């Protein structure tokens, strides 16, 4: 066993969501770290070009297993987790409905953890969560949002199915840690960007009315470049002595919403947008929320104070824990990360 890793290079590692935007990079980094006994779990319907392209670059990847299945199936989870030492659980429920998101994030995780405990050799379960679990409703603008900050306590009011799924997923993972001594680590990436992700994040504004409204332009975005994020995830699985810990994942030299938008407009496309002060957005959200409640959902509570706060209030972010506990530092600095993100728009979408 490597002195700084909890497993040896031949121990079996399972990666769920391995064909996803971050998952492919996690697989790539594990191969770069010298771990070749990998099992990549993918959905039967997945188009695997991205993953196969990555595997083809590593001669040592010839032994990497591709496993097709559904994490909602306990049988598939048993097959996936048998003999595994570390699970990187990146698969998530992106369904727009609460029930769908819950199934995709919670039931899958429960099945996987059960199978891991019963049929694996559990050294660590790395659960990739999200910033969406935080609530900054009662925090001041510009205050530090770190791992100790409060979590969302009314996800239904926030009207964010994905965040709800992630919140409940985290609760379940922690419960398994307490009840069944499952060794786990939770990562909460901020806004993950890079080649392969072409849209503008909701933290910069919204285009729900057919034109872009920029809110909180001077807010710092909790950005993390996809390779930097993947490295944090990989290290969270390997580093000793961090069981039960939680890490926010953000890069250094974070950009503001205005800075990001300026670079995007300059390189990708110029477009007009309306700037809305945060206070106005908050009042609008308050009125929308009131009307939605009063009419029992005639308008769904798509705009509400919790969402407005979470996305546009503006906080500061820190990666101190990540650096100190995992020994992580960004592989790619922000300038280069932005250049690589923007470069993809010079090529046709793939």
């Amino acid at each position: 066993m490597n002195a700084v890793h909890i497993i040896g290079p031949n121990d079996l590692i399972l990666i769920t969501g391995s064909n996803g935007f971050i998952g492919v990079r996690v697989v790539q980094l594990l191969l770069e770290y010298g771990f070749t006994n990998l099992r990549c779990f993918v959905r039967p319907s997945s188009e695997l070009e991205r993953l196969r392209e990555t595997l083809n670059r590593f001669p040592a990847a010839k032994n990497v297993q591709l496993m097709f299945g559904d994490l909602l199936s306990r049988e598939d989870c048993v097959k996936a987790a048998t003999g595994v030492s570390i699970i990187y659980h990146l698969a998530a429920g992106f369904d727009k409905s609460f029930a769908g998101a819950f199934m995709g994030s919670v039931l899958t995780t429960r099945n996987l953890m059960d199978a891991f405990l019963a049929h694996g050799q559990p050294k660590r379960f790395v659960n990739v969560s999200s910033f969406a679990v935080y609530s900054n409703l009662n925090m001041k603008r510009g205050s530090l949002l770190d791992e100790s900050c409060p979590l969302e306590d009314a996800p239904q009011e926030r009207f964010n199915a994905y965040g709800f799924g992630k919140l409940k997923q985290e609760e379940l993972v922690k419960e398994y840690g307490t009840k069944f001594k499952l060794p786990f680590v939770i990562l909460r990436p901020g806004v993950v960007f890079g080649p392969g992700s072409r849209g503008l994040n909701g933290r910069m504004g919204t285009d729900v009315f057919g034109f872009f409204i920029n809110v909180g332009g001077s807010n710092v975005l909790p950005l993390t470049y996809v390779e930097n994020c993947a490295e944090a995830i990989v290290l969270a699985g390997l580093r000793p002595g961090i069981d039960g810990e939680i890490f926010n994942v953000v890069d250094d030299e974070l950009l503001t919403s205005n800075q990001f938008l300026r670079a995007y407009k300059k390189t990708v496309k110029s477009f007009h947008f309306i700037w809305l002060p945060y206070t106005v957005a908050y009042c609008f959200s308050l009125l929308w929320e009131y009307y939605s409640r009063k009419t029992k959902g005639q308008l769904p509570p798509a705009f509400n104070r919790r969402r407005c706060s979470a996305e546009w209030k503006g906080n500061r972010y820190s990666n101190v824990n990540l650096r100190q506990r995992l020994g992580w530092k960004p592989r790619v600095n922000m300038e280069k990360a932005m250049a690589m993100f923007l470069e993809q728009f010079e090529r046709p979408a793939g």
Partner: protein
Amino acid sequence: MLRIAIVGCGKIADQHVQAIGRIADCRIVSLCDREILMARQLGERFNVQECFSDLAELLTKTSPDVVHITTPPQSHFSLAKQSLDSGSHVYLEKPFTVTADEAQSLIRLAEGHNLKITAGHNYQFTLEMIEMRQLVAKGFLGGNPVHMESYWSYNLQDPVYAKPVLGDRKHWVRQLPGQLLHNIVSHGIAKLVEFLDDELIEIVAKAHQSPELLRLGEEEVFDELRVLIRDARGTTAFFCFSSQIKPGLNQLRLFGLDGSVLVDHTTGSLIPYVNRSYKSYLTYFIPPINSARIHFRNARRNFFAFLGRRLYQDYGMKELIERFYNSIRSNAQPAIPYREIILTARIMDEVFTQIGGNTR
């Protein structure tokens, strides 16, 4: 106060909870899902304390007046039977059952127990459908429809419903005799059935795969269906289900001896066509102006319905549930006559037999 239970806490259950929340004098008392975590997540979000993973336990411990069954159709028959046998009225999501025989058995059982049962054909009760029914009842068509057409479109890119089905060969929808079609077409067929005679002379069904579905690599699922129906009174009907037509169509057209009517669910519009002719070139000027007036009237009606908080998503579901509850309270006939539920199931049986069930 009617005490309600919901069995099956997946995606559609949220809509039921919200619709029930808009109806006076009823309360959801318990939830059930084979997967207890699913019941709990719904209960947590809507403040329902009693959650079960076993229907028998729910029925014994909470004795609901009405059970809403929102599980996959394969379980509808057994769960509905269990609920009826324990003395609860039943609201069954569409499709009512997998086969017409099951539908008939359930209805007989409900009648035997002096209980009510209904099918989740909520599109029958949208604002425009209710208005259409009033128009037809006044004799606008001039008798029974001569011909009817029902169009139903489906977006294969829909991330909530279509993609999970297409991405998973083990998905419960794929296990139905009519697969994707089986889970969807009852809405469109039920609208025709309302005006069809029980005695059907002819049903001709043809199905095929769209090029888009083939491109997605699907080899087992049909996504294009055309059905021709003729009843003993001579009324003919055409049903079209398509994943390709753009913009998406969700329409019912009734053609009568005196007038015709178009119900458009997509825009919430009712467009009556009056049998009137105009001299010479006036036929090119007056009818379009009349059409504009009718469209404006629809927009105005919808606008005021919105302001009056009568227009909202799933209005049809709330209306159907409310009418069903009222029929329970007053021991009246349910909003959807049983003959329509059975006839819809019979037509679906025949369609899936003709198109070859699970084989392409």
